[in-house]
């Protein structure tokens, strides 16, 4: 197996089940069906699969919570609301069966009876193609009634609606049940009480695709790719000022430099890199040498997140970057808790005024303090995460922001 082609090999194939079967598809499920739940979970544990949805939570630990209580549910998180993230779209477009196979394996392992794919509302075409893929899988006996004598499992597609926060697992489950898409306080964790108070296991699209790979090629093989702590292949999304933005595959732990060169290099002179999505810090060019895996990134005070990398060159104004970021947070906050509901609005207001030349000198300090409040008291990770981008811009690019504010002060003074 080519270790940098596990997802990308499907790019030039059709999403049909035959093409997938030709690529060893569903052999993972066939293997799984000969094993017990515990044996499957052991394989996942040995492979050290970490969730690809952003948090890097060990999948085996989540599944081990299963008590066999029924009904229980598998939810595939295909909300992919993170700007600059489009890897799940890639999988669902080119190898939907890889995800479906992973879901069925997961269901068999945790004894779930029903699955939901919660797909981002902005992906309607993918959703309708997925319907077709589900049908194919059912026709071949990999899905639906009697996959084995005593295992049936069906999958329903739910089209999402709502803010970015709906990607958070508890908010997603609320939305899936027809409630307002706001998070709930854990505990109870979804694996104890999720959909309709029943055990619910929620995984990202890419995580489930990795489950298929592990069952197809084995845990040791999976561990041989990437780093010891964060093994396996990874899809990275590179956007911004690079020659060829897009989805790239590389082993976990590859450097930022490796990926930027895969994307054809920086256009112009590199200035800043944001890693991990909107909620990730914005680093100066030193970040080129960072290793892209969960552990290394958190040791840098950052996150791997969904694996999004946004490249900015010297044409980029950091005040504008901050403004766009803050507007995003203000628009996407679900509004449940005070710090995030009001904090995002004030941050956005201040960032906007800095861009408009109406910034005040104490804004920078107040923005930092606001980010601290949000980090300290937001209800869910969304509000807490604002701190990283805000503080990183304020720390790494404070000269530029100060200069802009001072320059505008000067213009105002001389105009009077």
């Amino acid at each position, binding site marked *: 197996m080519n270790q940098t082609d596990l997802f990308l090999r499907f790019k030039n194939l059709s999403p049909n089940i035959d093409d997938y079967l030709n690529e060893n598809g569903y052999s993972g499920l066939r293997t799984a069906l000969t094993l017990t739940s515990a044996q499957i979970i052991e394989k996942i544990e040995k492979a050290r699969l970490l969730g690809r949805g952003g948090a890097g939570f060990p999948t085996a630990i989540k599944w081990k919570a299963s008590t066999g209580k029924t009904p229980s549910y598998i939810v595939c998180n295909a909300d992919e609301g993170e700007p600059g993230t489009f890897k799940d779209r890639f999988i669902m477009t080119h190898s939907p069966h890889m995800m479906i196979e992973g879901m069925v394996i997961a269901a068999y392992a945790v004894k779930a009876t029903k699955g939901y794919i919660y797909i981002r509302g902005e992906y309607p075409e993918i959703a309708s193609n997925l319907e077709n893929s589900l049908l194919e899988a059912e026709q071949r006996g990999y899905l639906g009634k009697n996959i084995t004598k005593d295992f049936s499992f069906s999958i329903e597609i739910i089209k999402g609606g*709502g*803010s970015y926060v709906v990607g958070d697992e508890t908010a997603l489950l609320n939305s899936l049940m027809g409630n*307002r898409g*706001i998070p709930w*306080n854990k505990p109870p964790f979804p694996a104890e009480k999720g959909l309709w108070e029943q055990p619910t296991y929620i995984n990202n699209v890419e995580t489930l695709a990795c489950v298929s790979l592990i069952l197809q090629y084995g845990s040791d093989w999976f561990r041989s790719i990437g780093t010891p702590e964060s093994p396996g292949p990874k899809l990275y999304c590179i956007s911004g000022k690079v020659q060829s933005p897009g989805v790239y595959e590389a082993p976990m732990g590859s450097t930022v430099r490796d990926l930027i060169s895969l994307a054809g290099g920086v256009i112009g002179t590199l200035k800043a890199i944001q890693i991990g999505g909107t909620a990730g810090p914005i680093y100066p060019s030193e970040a080129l040498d960072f290793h892209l895996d969960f552990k290394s990134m958190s040791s840098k005070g950052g996150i791997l997140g969904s694996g999004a990398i946004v490249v900015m060159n010297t044409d980029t104004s950091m005040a504008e970057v901050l403004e766009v970021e803050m507007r995003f947070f*203000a*628009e*996407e*906050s*679900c*509004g*449940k*808790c*005070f*710090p995030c*509901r*009001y*904090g*995002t*609005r*004030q941050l956005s*207001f*201040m960032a906007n005024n800095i861009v408009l030349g109406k910034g005040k000198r*104490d804004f920078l300090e*107040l923005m930092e*303090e*606001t980010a*601290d*409040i949000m980090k*300290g*008291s*937001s*209800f869910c990770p969304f509000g*807490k995460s604002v701190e990283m981008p805000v503080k990183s811009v304020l720390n790494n690019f404070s000269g530029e922001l100060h200069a802009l504010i001072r320059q505008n002060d000067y213009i105002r003074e001389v105009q009077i």
Partner: protein
Amino acid sequence: MITLTIDKTTIQVAKGTSVLDAAKQAGVDIPTLCRHEDLTPLGTCGMCMVDIDGFKDLQRACITEAVEGMQVQTNTPQLRKLRRGLLELVLATHPDDCLQCIKHGSCELQKLADRFEIRTLRYDKYTRGLPLDRTAAGIVRDMNKCIGCGRCVSVCHEVQSVKAIDFMGRGSDTIISPGYGVSMGSSVCVNCGQCIVYCPTGALYEKEMIDEVWEALDDPKKVVVAQVAPAVRVALGEEFGMAPGSLVIGKIYSALRSLGIDYIFDTNFSADLTILEEGTELLERLSSGGTLPLITSCSPGWIKFGETYYPELLDHVSTCKSPQQMLGTIIKTYFAKTHTIDPENIVSLSIMPCTAKKFEAARPEMNDSGYQDVDYVLTTRELARMIRQAGLQFKSIQEENPDPVLSQYTGAATIFGASGGVMEAAIRSAYELKTQKTLGSLDFTDLRGIEGIKKASVDIEGTEVRVAVSNGLSNARKLLNIVAEAKERGEMPFHFIEIMACRGGCIGGGGQPLENTLAKRAQRIEGLYAEDKNLPIRKSHENAEVLGLYKEFLQKPGSEISHHLLHTHYTAR
């Protein structure tokens, strides 16, 4: 028991106690804007963050359970800064018209801003510029002052199950409003006012009628007649620093007289009257195979709830008007005639613990006297304001008596203000009227208290009469679902049901003094039962004035004239 340390105090608390409640027991008041002891914790405001050893992040004290050995810091420099910052963020969205606000001095946001010494606002000040919603009969909503804590949504959904309001929108545009953009007046809101009770700010309040009442008092042509509901007499004192449950009815009569009210009557009188009418209706339905269970009709919040959610059960609801409306009708008919006053010139005023009574008085069918039976309804809080405006020293005011003929009452009437009271009063009379025997004990303690659903059965001459009582509309919903399901099977689990919209009954109504917590409600209930115990007459059918009214005017319970004046009908919504 669990042992934990809050700041420097080590205490023991029961398992399941939140860190916030544990701190309270340790003498530390952790600030909060969304937690209320009567409601499920919401975790929206973030004011109660605490630092717990072993946790990377700060935790919300309201939704974190105390566990053995926990070490909690509640007052670190980081926490102080955070709380002030949060308050600044909230205040930046909040109007600055505190001096004109109905909650000035009692607003929880104002108190916290003061406690944490917010003297300047570094944030951009913005307000929402939303119109005042005055469309509901009893409730005004000023969403500019709403901080979005969610208590009102919680009480409306979980405690009342009315679901009139909910969160809409997201981010800083989040707003609480009736569904589908309708106004409060055309929503399913039942005007119970429990949202007002739990609102920390001035975003929700009663629709005041004080100005109209002053105007009537100032008009020499008008004869102003007042009635006072049972629950008011054990609560008004709180507005003047007295303990919840203090019986102040004599002071109320006296204050009303000082305010210039011409005739002072008592809704307790018509509570006794209601028992005779409703008791007769029950005995009739029992003996003639009428629709059972019979359900009480005194609580106007419940009536609108029933009309909205249980139209198929409306023929179970007693046709009796509520005591307020009965007395209103009698005042503009019998009283007007005997005192030769033109009903046109009578202004009928009632003092109620309830915001839904404003809705009830305004119902178009409530005009059997030929006029609107009750003109103005003041809540307990509004009466307190009038008393303060007039400069009356309520605490030291001399007790007085009401005016005769429509004011005598029994113990059975006064307990109408507590959940289970109407039922207890009805049983006392129904039993004795039916059996012609005297009851040994008048106390039906199974029916008393704040518990959501209470049941009992009474043996009346060999017939077992099963009764049930509910308070809080979510409990009414549970009880009615039992009835509806049983009905489908052709069964009848109960003969008689009392439903009160608010937790604890009228003493917990949306117009009662704030704070209006369950703990205070329990004290008010005690006040009412204490009065019952001390009254010389404790059975409605022994109320001499009521019997006199029948003799002179109404003939007998359930007579044609009674039916015309004292009964009503309901419409599905």
